[in-house]
């Protein structure tokens, strides 16, 4: 087995050769599916996500058509391709997936100007083609792009990324414990990390999720680095949208 995250302190290099504050390569496209109202394809390193948006449209259920009287409902569906992980695995709707769906749908319900579309539903469908860490962050970024492509009005970009602390919770203070930005799959398994999503250029945090234990004093650094990362991702996504706009102007 090659090295693990403990080798970070040797030369301040992470497992894939990045420094603590570097993002992975991000590649994004929008309008990839002609048939959808809005679509996007996003790669953060080896995490690859395809997103399509349908709506705002009339809801599927006949009884209750769309959302409440005064605003649109946001539905999120996440599907994993069988080949997305290291091992081929059938993934039914497990709790983790439903939690991600719920996180996304609450985040976008507040972000999107849903009051413009009463009695309707906006459906976001995410297809995970390949998983290598920062999955929730990738989903948020892909959804944002697809929603922009669909022309759903929103106040700003919702962008997300992950941040970790480079040494495990109970190790000593003397060891270097840099916050790390944008984790890959291997790092996620070994280090405590959080996912943070902010609204565009502002530092307003809209999603913050952490499932591992970490020393309280490390969180501040992790959060600061995460928010910084979000700002940079916003620049990149903005570039993609603008580039697309120019080409089809």
């Amino acid at each position, binding site marked *: *087995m*090659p*090295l693990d995250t403990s*080798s970070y302190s*040797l*030369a*301040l*290099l992470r*497992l*894939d*050769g*990045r*420094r*603590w*504050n*570097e993002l*992975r*390569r991000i*590649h994004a*496209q929008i*309008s*990839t*599916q*002609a048939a959808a109202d809005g*679509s996007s*394809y996003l*790669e953060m*390193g*080896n995490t*690859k996500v*395809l997103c399509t948006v349908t709506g705002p449209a009339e809801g599927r259920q006949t009884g209750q058509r769309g959302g409440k009287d005064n605003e649109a409902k946001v539905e999120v569906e996440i599907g994993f391709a069988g080949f997305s992980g*290291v*091992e081929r695995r059938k993934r039914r709707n497990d709790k983790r997936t439903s939690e991600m769906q719920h996180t996304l749908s609450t985040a976008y319900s507040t972000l999107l100007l849903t009051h413009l579309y009463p009695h309707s539903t906006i459906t976001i469908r995410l297809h995970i*083609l390949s998983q*290598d860490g920062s999955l929730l962050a990738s989903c948020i970024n892909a959804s944002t792009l697809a929603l922009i492509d669909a022309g759903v009005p929103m106040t700003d970009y919702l962008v997300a990324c992950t941040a970790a602390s480079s040494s495990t*919770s*109970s*190790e*000593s*203070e*003397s060891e*270097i414990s*840099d*916050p790390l930005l944008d984790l*890959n799959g*291997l790092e996620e398994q070994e280090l405590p990390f959080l996912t943070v999503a902010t609204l565009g250029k502002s530092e307003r945090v809209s999603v913050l999720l952490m499932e591992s234990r970490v*020393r309280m004093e490390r969180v501040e*650094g992790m959060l600061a*680095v995460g928010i910084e990362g979000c700002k940079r991702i916003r620049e990149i996504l903005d570039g993609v949208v603008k580039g697309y706009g120019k080409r089809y102007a």
Partner: protein
Amino acid sequence: MEYFSLKRSNAADRGQTNLSSKVYVRSTKSGKVQKIVRELYLRQDIPCSSNLCKSCIEIAPTDYSKKVAPFILSDTPAGSKNFPHGQYLVPDTNAFLTGMDLFEVENALQDVIVLQTVLEEVKNRSLPLYHRLIALTKNEGKRFYVFFNEFRQETHVVRDAGETINDRNDRAVRKAVQWYSQHIKDAVAARSKLSKRVPSVVMISDDRDNLRKARLEGIAAHTLFDFVSGLSNADELLDMISAAEEKREVRSKKAEVFYSEHFTLSKMMTGVKAGTLHQGIFNVSPYNYLEGSIHVPAFDKSLLILGRENSNRAVSGDVVVVEVLPQDQWKAPSTKIIEEETVTKNDNAEAEDGENVVSERERRALQEEVKRIHGQSAEGKPQPTARVVGIIKRNWRQYVGHIDRDSVRSSSKSSRQQQIVFLVPMDKRIPKIRIRTRQAGELLGQRVLATIDAWERDSRFPVGHFVRSLGELESKGAETEALLLEWDVQYKPFPKTVLDCLPVEGHDWKVPTSMDDPGWRGRKDLRDLLVCSIDPPGCVDIDDALHARKLPNGNFEVGVHIADVSHFVKPNNAMDKEASQRGTTVYLVDKRIDMLPMLLGTDLCSLKPYVERYAFSVLWEITSDADIVSAHFTKSVIRSREAFAYEQAQIRIDDKSQQDDLTNGMRTLMMLSKKLRQKRMDAGALNLASPEVKIQTESETSDPVDVQTKKQLDTNSLVEEFMLLANISVAGKNYEAFPQTALLRRHAPPPKTNFEELDNQLKVKKGLELRTDSSKALADSLDTCVDPNEPFFNTLVRIMATRCMMSAEYFCAGTQAYPEFRHYGLASEIYTHFTSPIRRYADLEAHRQLAAAIDYEQLDSSLQSRGKLEGVCKNINVRHRNAQMAGRASIEYYVGQALKGKDITEDGFVMKIFSNGMVVFVPRFGIESLIRLRDLATPEPEAEFDAENYTLKVKGEVNRNVELFEKVKVRITDEMEESTGKRKVKLTLV
């Protein structure tokens, strides 16, 4: 409209040069094959870390706090014969695998570049070596730099189609060396045009193909052997290269095979799962080197492993897998002493001729055994025997021993000829180790440290290499170091990082005078209490102090005050880590190896008299019948009034004229302690014995003068009782607060089978019965084991019973069910160690937990994790045991020294009896020694051994009967063993 294509993104990347990926296939434990794809970001800002280079300083990375790591490699590296301008070494993986000891020598090989490729390979091949290598890179003096060549654009190498992974890694190493030498050349040129001194970058590899290719590419490359030969102290260094690799070439021509092949890991695992094979730890009997035993869960009794063929290259301590032999090969455990020294005395270290594994002489020794057993009735109780089929994990460590004089061909000191010699380890259970050396002459008569490298099928003995010499045999320094190494005691001085954690005031530190000081927060002021400490004479690390006073309601307030070490040692700093590794202070006869630095242990924490000290106090309200009304725990400040030695305290208590409050307080303590002790005994606490002697040494030279048995005074048990009480109270409190993570101590009840033999011996020889159903029953029946004519007999039985016990252990509360917490020996439901935090790490952890339990401070995260604590427990259990062993070995050595040149006749008792000898215990000196038949007379007298009645009838001119438990007169002399040049205590029957 642009359509989505999964492939397009990759196509677009192809132009990008700074991104590569690593694809590899791995198989999981369950046998599945996984294909892993990982990104690699190639970069140009990985510095060379040479102080010669100016350009790399600009690109050096910064961490989150904007700090830059200093450059490591010296600008004037040491040179050697071939490289007068100095060299940077780039070792290949095999160099580290074979020569790690060499690289660890201080001041020998410095300025080493460890490539990432090599580091990864080392990690794959051997985790312990990887950890040693990482430790080296952190050692500032050694100047080892890890260069991440796989991430640097110029040195990244992509595996070609059809190329093996080894070839690719070799190529990566060569490429890195090439880049480095060019880079250094450029750096020197950029520095000044005139400078001629360009250090060479030298690749060190034992791979011939790699060396050849390197030379073709114009890279300076050497084998480790060749390179070291060019250094000034080559002879000593060369011996340290592991023998494992070299040997393969030398001996491949003759394929004499002595041992059967080991099973593959998967075959063993399947067998163990199916129950056909068994896994356990291989132990060798200290009396018979050909007899091993292994305890496996499937059997109550241990399985026997007889002979070298069956033990199949397992060394005592290895985790092995065995196969049970058919019943007709079952045997009783040996009743004969077989020592390797005497049986294989004449084996030649160099000769590896067609001799069978079990040499003729060994075979004969075993044969007699078998005959005897078969001749016996069913009473002989044959035990299942087994054969080692494979080894799961080697537990090889470094062994201390001496060079066998007989195996040395030319012992001239000037001879530089390489020869193979035997190293005879101190530990009798370890086989001789074949060592290749050029300094045999010098090593004779020295204590030598060596390791085992390998034990191939075609070698009768394991092959190892020399690590270093500790000094003359029998010199105090060498012997002390030897036993510290042998018991793995960390004895190096504390590193600077640890000393940096000490309070800056040093010896001037005082309890703050102002009560507003943060140090006083949550502390009770107990300075007006009449506290005193009672310890062995000359004790400087005073852990505990006591007080007692009468309360208005007629009850007593008793306080135990323990040094507040946790105030000074904060969790997880360097000092705490060092202490947790050391685990305990080790007491040798002439030396103390501290767990904490002197400043704390003997001054700031120590509850010295007349000064104020921080303490952690346990206060009880106790009735005059010694019933506990309430217990209260608090951090405090105390001022001890006096530090007594046991004897002093005893005199003061007995002296009726002393009627001051302090003495009366001590009398109260004495009265209560006697009642507490009685209660404990009624509950079934055991009173066990171990042979304890005290060495009187001359104060200056610490040469032993006399040996005395330790005296037990009432004040000893006074202190002991209250310490036990404090430990029990704290254990209860900690468990209540942290039911999952409290650190406790348990003593499991011994399995019945442990006592079978002793019980039988007592029954046969003395008509006594040992009842072992509970600790109470055992305590009572031990009390009845008396011989009216021989007062010492009871102690002897207690000593032997102690050896049948399990050892007590530290554990983490969550790992056992509550009934398992029981401390068998103390007959207490729950127990921990709290009262000696200066010398035991467990106590320090208990202090932290108790401080959190009384809301004094937050519990550190390391004490909340069960996994972490289990690790701590495991370590301190081992350390605790080792410390005891080292202490005993030290006493043994000094007893030997005290008896030097003397000739004494003393009383002894027969403890164990064999068909060709016996073990005799001499209480006066606490020594236990073998007397073999051949020591009684020459030629060795015939003897008749009756295993059922434990008697040995010696015939011939000696003509006497020896029985178990018999009191015998023995003559104690010391003798120089000819083969080893080692002095030994020798006993003979008179």
